[in-house]
């Protein structure tokens, strides 16, 4: 799911710190933003805006952090509105709903662990690309 690759150049200490911070930012926002998953997306988006004129390494990782947040948004939103409909409409709780919530939990957990791992390795100046998200970032973010 996560591949460590060689980046085009060796990022310096300052760049590694900023790139790592983009992942830390989304993690902190997850903790602060639960149960509204959109808050971490907004936080990561503002961090991305603040760094879009940064060096290529920083920009690349800010973009990957933002896209990683975007990826689960449709799934989390569906779960959120399903819950709301159970509370406020005749829709009732079902095994399908519980299964969906467990699925969401598993994939959000995977994303959370991957975010922590990526924050640690990018801090060391290593370059990691996520499954799907890494490829998309390469398409969007050009040197």
């Amino acid at each position: 799911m996560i591949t460590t690759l060689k980046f085009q150049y060796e990022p310096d200490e300052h760049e590694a710190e900023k790139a790592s911070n983009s992942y830390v930012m989304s993690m902190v926002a997850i903790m602060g933003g639960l149960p509204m998953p959109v808050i971490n997306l907004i936080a990561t988006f503002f961090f991305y805006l603040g760094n879009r004129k940064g060096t290529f390494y920083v920009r690349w990782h800010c973009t990957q952090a933002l896209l990683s947040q975007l990826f689960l948004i449709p799934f989390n939103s569906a779960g959120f509105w399903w819950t709301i409909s159970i509370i406020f409409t005749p829709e009732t709780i079902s095994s399908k709903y519980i299964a969906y919530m467990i699925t969401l939990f598993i994939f959000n957990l995977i994303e959370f662990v991957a975010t922590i791992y990526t924050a640690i390795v990018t801090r060391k100046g290593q370059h990691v690309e996520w499954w799907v998200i890494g490829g998309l970032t390469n398409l969007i973010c050009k040197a």
Partner: protein
Amino acid sequence: MKKILLELVLTIAVIVAVWFGLSQVDWMKLFNIRQTTQNTEEKIGDLFWKMLKNSETEITSDSIVAPIDSILIRICKANSIDRKKIKLHLLRKDEINAFALPGNHLVVYSGLITSCENEAELCGVIGHELAHIEKNHVMNKLVKEIGLSVLISISTGNGNSEAIKSALKQISSSAYDRKLETEADLTAVDYLEKAGIDPEPFANFLYRLADQSKNLPSQIYWISSHPESKERAEKIIERIKGNSFPKPEGKDSLRFERLKEKVNKGL
């Protein structure tokens, strides 16, 4: 680009597969959710019924209960609904009202029976309340209007009598939202059709009571708690347009007239 798309499709497929796989487990049974919900519902329903029974007069005469019960049996049988789970109660009260309580209690006031011009009208109202029970509208309404915490405190015996009274008032004399009322009407039409009963008198009943309620609003609870009655009647007529139903026989209307007489005499 192709590689990314393939990875994306694969990831979404994995998410859906995990969801599908987990859906095969009966989580409701595993977490005992249905049982807990049913227990709460039954406790609340029994409590409401006990309160009603203490404040109103229950009709227990077989000559009145049996014909209403036979209507219920007919609708339930034709729609594969377990009759045994429905707790039918008749109360002596002039208000034109019928309502469903949590825990499958179905309450019919004598005022409703005497205000119906024929059996099919009463069948429509019973079908409508049965639909509220079957579609789980009752608990949904209570949760929405008085809140889950109050309901839980009532079911655990910690609710005060004022809270119970107010919840009972909500369920017996206020409307469900328009979407639920329409759903109950159309489900009732389905029930009636399957039972071979013409739904048109049900629509007529709504029309008639909507007109009467202008003069006697406080008596006609069922209609005042079910707004937009004319609009609802039109929807029923629209739904059954072109369908034909067996006309009631003379002996049926005679039987219903006798039932009304007995209710009026207080037998």
